[in-house]
C-alpha cells in the first residue's frame, strides 16, 4: 500500500478553490518534491496530507487512514509535519516543549536530551521558546520529528531560516525516515533546492499538480 494516495482531492476555503483535484501517490522510500509560486497551494497540500485539513471532495488515504474519517487520529503520531511556523508553546522552554510533546504522544522522554544534542540545541534546552530565534525554533521542530519515528515526513520550506548545519539535519532526518521504509514530501518555492534531494519533483500550478 502506498504511504499516501490522493485522488481528485479538492480543498476550498471561503469560496476559493485552493486544491483543484490533486492526484498523488507516494510509495515507501520515495522523496517527493513539490515546487510552486507563492499562493499556489503547496502548504495546503502538505497540511491536507498531514490530515489537518479535511478535503471538500475526492478520496485520499494517508498511512492507510482515509482522509475525512476518524481513522486519521490513529495515524497522526506517525506523521512528521514541520511547517513555516514552528509548532511550539511560546511560554515553555525548548526542552519542556519536547518533553510535553513526548508525554502527549507516548514517546520516551529520555530521548529528549538525545535529540537536542542531535540538532545542536543541548545548551539551549532551558530557553523559553518565545525568546529563541526562528532558526532555533525550527531546529526544535526537527528535534521533535527526530524523536517520533514518523513514517511520513512533510516538510514545508525546510531550508528557510536555517543555516547549513541545520540543513544537514533536514537531510539526515529524511535519510533516516526513508531508510526505515518511510517517505517524505518536501515543499519549496525554490525548485533548485529540491533537485538534489528528491527522487521526483512536481509543480503546483492553478491548484493542480503538474
Amino acid at each position, binding site marked *: 500500500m502506498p504511504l499516501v494516495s490522493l485522488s481528485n482531492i479538492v480543498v476550498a476555503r471561503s469560496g476559493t478553490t485552493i486544491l483543484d483535484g490533486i492526484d498523488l501517490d507516494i510509495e515507501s522510500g520515495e522523496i517527493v518534491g513539490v515546487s510552486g509560486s507563492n499562493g499556489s497551494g503547496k502548504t495546503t497540500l502538505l497540511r491536507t496530507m498531514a490530515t489537518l485539513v*479535511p478535503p471538500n471532495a475526492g478520496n485520499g488515504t494517508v498511512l492507510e487512514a482515509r482522509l475525512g474519517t476518524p481513522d486519521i487520529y490513529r495515524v497522526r503520531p506517525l506523521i512528521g509535519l514541520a511547517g513555516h511556523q514552528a*509548532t511550539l508553546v511560546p511560554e515553555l522552554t525548548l526542552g519542556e516543549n519536547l518533553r510535553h510533546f513526548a508525554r*502527549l504522544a507516548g514517546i520516551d522522554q529520555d530521548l529528549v536530551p538525545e535529540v537536542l544534542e542531535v540538532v545542536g540545541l543541548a545548551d539551549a534546552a532551558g530557553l523559553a521558546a518565545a525568546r529563541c530565534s526562528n532558526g532555533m525554533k525550527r531546529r526544535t521542530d526537527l528535534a521533535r520529528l527526530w524523536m517520533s519515528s514518523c513514517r511520513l515526513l512533510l516538510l514545508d520550506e525546510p531550508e528557510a531560516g536555517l543555516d547549513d548545519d541545520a540543513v544537514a539535519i533536514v537531510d539526515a532526518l529524511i535519510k533516516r525516515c526513508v531508510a526505515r521504509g518511510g517517505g517524505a514530501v518536501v515543499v519549496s518555492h525554490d525548485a533548485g533546492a529540491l533537485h538534489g534531494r528528491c527522487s521526483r519533483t512536481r509543480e503546483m500550478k492553478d491548484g493542480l499538480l503538474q
Partner: protein
Amino acid sequence: MTSTRQIVEILRRELLIERRAGEVITIVVPFAALALALAPLALPVDTDVLPRIGPALYWLIALLFGLQATMRSASQESEVSELEAMAGVDPAVRFAGRSLAAAVLVFGVLVALAPLMVVLYAPAPVPGWPAIIPSALLLAAGLGMLGVLAGDLTAGLRQRSALAPLLAVPLGVPLLMGSAQGFDYLARGAGILTWTLLLLATDLVLAIVGVVTARHLQEAKL
C-alpha cells in the same frame, strides 16, 4: 499514552503557562475585583441595599469574568492545538483536558473574589455556607466547558473577543441561576438540592455535547 494521562498533561501545561505568563491572575482577577468594587460607587452613598445585592453581584461577575478567564487560556492558540493534534491526542480528550484547566482557573477566580465581596458588601453571615462549595465547583466546571466551546466556535475570528462571551453568557444562565439562587436559598435556610442538581444537569449536558461535537469543532479551522 492513556487518555487520562493526556488530560493530566494538558492540565499541567495550562497551569504552568498561567503561572509563567498568565493573564488570569494578573489581569482577569483584578478586573473582576474592580467591577465588584465599582458597583457601590454607582449607587447612592446611603443605600442599605449592598449587603443584599453583594452575593448576587458576586455570582454575576463570576459568570462574566470567569468566562473571560477561560478565553485567556493559551490552549486556544493554533500552534498549541496543532501540537496536540499531531501528537495524536483525540479531540474529545483535548476538550476534556482544556475544560479541566479552564475550570481550575475559574475556580481560582471564584476563590479570589469571595473574600473581597464579603469585605466590600458585608452580607449577612450565612451559617452552613460551606454547602455552596459543591455548587461553586460545578459552576467552575460548567464555565470551563462553556468557555472552551465558545472559544472553539470563535477561534480565528476577528470578532472573537466580543462574540465568544455573547454566545456563552445566555447559554450559561442555568449556571448563574444554579449558583446564585442556590446561595440565596441557603441564606434563607431553604434547601439548595434542586439548584445543585440543576448545576449538575447542566454540567453533564455540556460535557456530553462537548465530547460528541469535539471532532467536528476541531476540523472546523479557518
